[in-house]
């Protein structure tokens, strides 16, 4: 294992068809020592996830083709990803959506306006990477 790989705190995958949230999370998480990947839809997300085995996957709730809930359910079925934490996000966290996300296998839910510090804390708590 290279020195660089040793320093990586965790691998994160962001699945979203819109570039805003993935690019923001990529920049901010990379600054905190995480490796960040992105996929433009659910189907590609599953392929990338099986390849890189991320520790955490952020999935947009609303996506064309396979939506966030469906993607979440399919990711949960992958044996290689049994230790991966799934987090869904959308622009607003309606209780119905949060309940649906948890039922589909998500461990938590964030919104696109959730401060990054809160999101970072959630990931650190999940991975035990407290600074």
């Amino acid at each position, binding site marked *: 294992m290279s020195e660089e790989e040793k320093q990586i705190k965790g691998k994160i995958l962001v699945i979203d*068809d*819109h*570039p*805003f*949230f993935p*690019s*923001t999370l990529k*920049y*901010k998480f990379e*600054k905190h020592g995480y490796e960040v990947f992105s996929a433009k839809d659910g189907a590609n997300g599953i392929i990338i996830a099986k390849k890189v085995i991320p520790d955490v996957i952020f999935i947009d709730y*609303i*996506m*064309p*083709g*396979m*939506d966030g809930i*469906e993607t979440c359910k399919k990711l949960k079925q992958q044996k290689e990803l049994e230790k991966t934490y799934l987090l869904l996000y959308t*622009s607003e966290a309606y209780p119905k959506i949060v309940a649906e996300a948890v039922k589909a296998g998500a461990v938590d839910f964030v919104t*696109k*306006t959730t401060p990054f510090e809160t999101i970072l804390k959630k990931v650190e708590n999940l991975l035990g990477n407290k600074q």
Partner: protein
Amino acid sequence: MENKKEQLSLNKKVILQKLITLGELAASISHELKNLLISITGYCDLIEEKLKDGADITQEIQNIKKTSLMSQKLFMEFLQFARGKDDEAEKKPQNINEIVEEALFMVKNIKHITFEKELDAKISPFPMHRQKIKQVLLNILLNGVQAIGDKAGKIQIKTKLLEFPFGFYVSIADSGCGMDKETLKNIFQPFFTTKEKGTGLGLSVCYEIMSEHNGYIYVESEKGKGTTFSIVFLYSRFKPHKDIIDL
């Protein structure tokens, strides 16, 4: 005289239905605009952070510009439809593909729905009331959006030239919940609705607008399998059988 009365009545119904369509569009567009604004604010936050780090911000500026232009165009299309004259006295030659593009632009950003289009460039301009036909298209598109609901789905819109009888059609197929035979039978009847808050005016107004253009509207649907609406315009008076439409 009788014709004028009928015309007046149709115009009133068109205006009423347009207000309903505007309400439905406003809900979908405001949701989309909110998302675009969240993106712009997010990119600004990222720029602030990148500036502190001395990092390159070219991409974020381009993204802000792109997102702002998209919001502007969405809003302008909406305003244009809202302010458009509903009582156009005369039909004018119009390019149906342009009207389809304008209608599609107002709904295509609904993220969980994939919109596919196939437009036939061979169709020549046809005399029509632009706003009314846009309203027919928006009405059918919004019905498709509602039939799909919150789940991921697809709407395919197609225009095609017909050689015999000489004319063209627009078909809009959604992957929504579909309709049973009883609903299908009554779908164009005024005040018939299956929606909780529906007025039952939308499709009956579409039917009347198409009649006013010597055109036809057809629907095919199966419960659980989606619905296809087709509107047919003919350069000559000849009622086509719905099988001429290659759905």
